């Protein structure tokens, strides 16, 4: 398995005196797959994603991207390699879907440059791939939560990166939209792109991912395939509730155990 990200002994805290968020974290993220980072709320998943992005620097430890130290990449190189879909993108300005997705072309433009014809064509293709061409002229504040996630993905498609980091892409979405997003991510990894997503929902992870990482208290407790990682013992330990894992068509299926009546 060739590693995309390799993290070794990562330690991070947001401010001196504040509690440690990531502690001695070591992890290999495979290239060309969908990796799901699973764990309860507040366990450092988003922080880990931001360290992979490079927006946060670890206090200790080493991080490499495709075998090269993370800090060896320039800002421009990183922005052409890694795209981010945050859980929420808050903006008080009511951009249209098209205007928002067009921002994906920024890494290829200087601060004084305007998007050209080619950038516009790329955005049109990105909207088409995400299946939201019909929403192009709609203001982003007037579309549904699932559609907003697709708009963010279209923006990253227009960014043309080979690595995609997503923070809780299926949180707050109904089952139809969850399936839509996860299938799109799978399609992207089939094309050779690497996808890393965080989630606190094991079933969403099983549905969409090939590689699984379990996190608790700022460090990794297990990683590997679904059958290796998604076990009743592992999940009950990290989520601190009784959890049953059943088999469905050869894949694990996670059920909260109600216990004895």
């Amino acid at each position, binding site marked *: 398995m060739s590693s995309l990200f390799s993290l070794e002994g990562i330690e991070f805290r947001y401010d001196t005196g504040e509690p440690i968020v990531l502690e001695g974290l070591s992890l290999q993220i495979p290239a060309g797959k969908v990796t799901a980072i699973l764990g309860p709320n507040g366990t450092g998943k988003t922080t880990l994603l*931001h360290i992979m*992005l*490079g*927006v946060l620097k670890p206090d200790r430890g080493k991080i490499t991207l495709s075998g090269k130290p993370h800090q060896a990449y320039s*800002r*421009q190189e*990183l*922005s*052409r390699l*890694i*795209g*981010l879909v*945050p859980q*929420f*993108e*808050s*903006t*008080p*300005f*009511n*951009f*249209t879907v098209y*205007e*928002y997705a067009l*921002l*994906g072309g*920024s*890494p290829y*433009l200087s*601060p*004084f*440059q*305007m*998007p050209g014809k080619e950038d516009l064509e790329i955005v049109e293709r990105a909207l088409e791939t995400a299946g939201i061409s019909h929403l192009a002229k709609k*203001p*982003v*504040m007037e579309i549904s939560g699932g559609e*907003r996630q697709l*708009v*963010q993905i279209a923006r990253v498609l227009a*960014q043309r990166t080979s690595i995609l*980091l997503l923070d809780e892409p299926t949180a707050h979405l109904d089952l139809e939209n969850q399936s839509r997003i996860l299938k799109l991510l799978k399609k992207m990894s089939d094309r050779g792109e690497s996808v890393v997503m965080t989630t606190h929902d094991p079933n969403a992870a099983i549905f969409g991912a090939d590689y699984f990482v379990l996190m608790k208290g700022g460090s990794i407790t297990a990683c590997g395939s679904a059958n290796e990682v998604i076990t009743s013992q592992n999940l009950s330990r990290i989520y601190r509730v009784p959890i049953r894992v059943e088999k469905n068509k050869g894949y694990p299926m996670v059920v909260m155990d109600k216990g004895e009546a």
Partner: protein
Amino acid sequence: MLFLALAVLGVFLASIFVGRYPKPYWMPFRVFQEDPLARQLVLKLRLPRLITALLLGMVLSAAGAVLQMVFRNPLVEPGFLGVSQGAAFGAAISILWFTRHPLVIELSATFFGLLALAGSYFLSTRIRYGGWVLRLILSGVAVSALFSAGVGFLKYIADPLTELPELTFWLLGGLYSVTWRDLLFVLPFGLAGLAVIYAMRWRINLLSLDDETAFSLGASLSRERLVLLVFAVSATAALTAISGIIGWIGLIVPHIARRLLGASSEKSIPAAILIGGIFSMIADSLARTLLPGEIPLGILTSAIGAILFIYLMVSIGIKVRNHV
């Protein structure tokens, strides 16, 4: 956009003939051709004043739009973040204690304007409660109040017969004393600010996103924000140094521009620049024409701006935060 550009030209040409000479409200073209005094009046007084009004409106609107997008807060304008009060304080210090040379006044105004902006920004990062919008507004109010107190103190110690009336009228805002020389001193600051903001008009969209997203898209956030803020604030402060405090243009015009041409700064910033120019040329023409005596421009822009703001709030509801 073409319509707005033509409107700027139309209002500019019309404003040349609006005034109280030879009689109230309108000077026929024939008078301009035949009366040497009228020509002198237009060329030496009205024209520099009109160009300054145009520049002032353009700069305040552009700076307001930039501040709103960079701070991701549609309720921000230079006055809300203490920039205007800081600049007024800087200019007043220079007038009272140092020199009335326009360049020194502008530099002093720019320095204190930037100091006020930095003060508001850092104070907002130290407040431990409330969202970003609330914290920024609170710190802006506090920093503005500090500089207002400073200006109040300067008024208190100013000579009541010579310095105080001049200072008070200047603080109310107005372009009544603008000459070609004043305009020449502010022109480089104003044009430099407008040029940088216009050149970065698409990029500014990126700076209005969450920090992590903007970073992932290759923005050097601190550097790009700093460049924009320095140019926007120094242009605002330089203009404030000759106009006094002109409120509301920087808040209301970007809203009107977004309503007309959409949220993307690629279009809304050029539109705000043009609308700002029209707004302040009209307000200044009213200020010098409506009454036999000059009405301070700041009073007019505040009155018109506040009424428009109320209308926009009630009719469309200005959204403070939303998620993509």
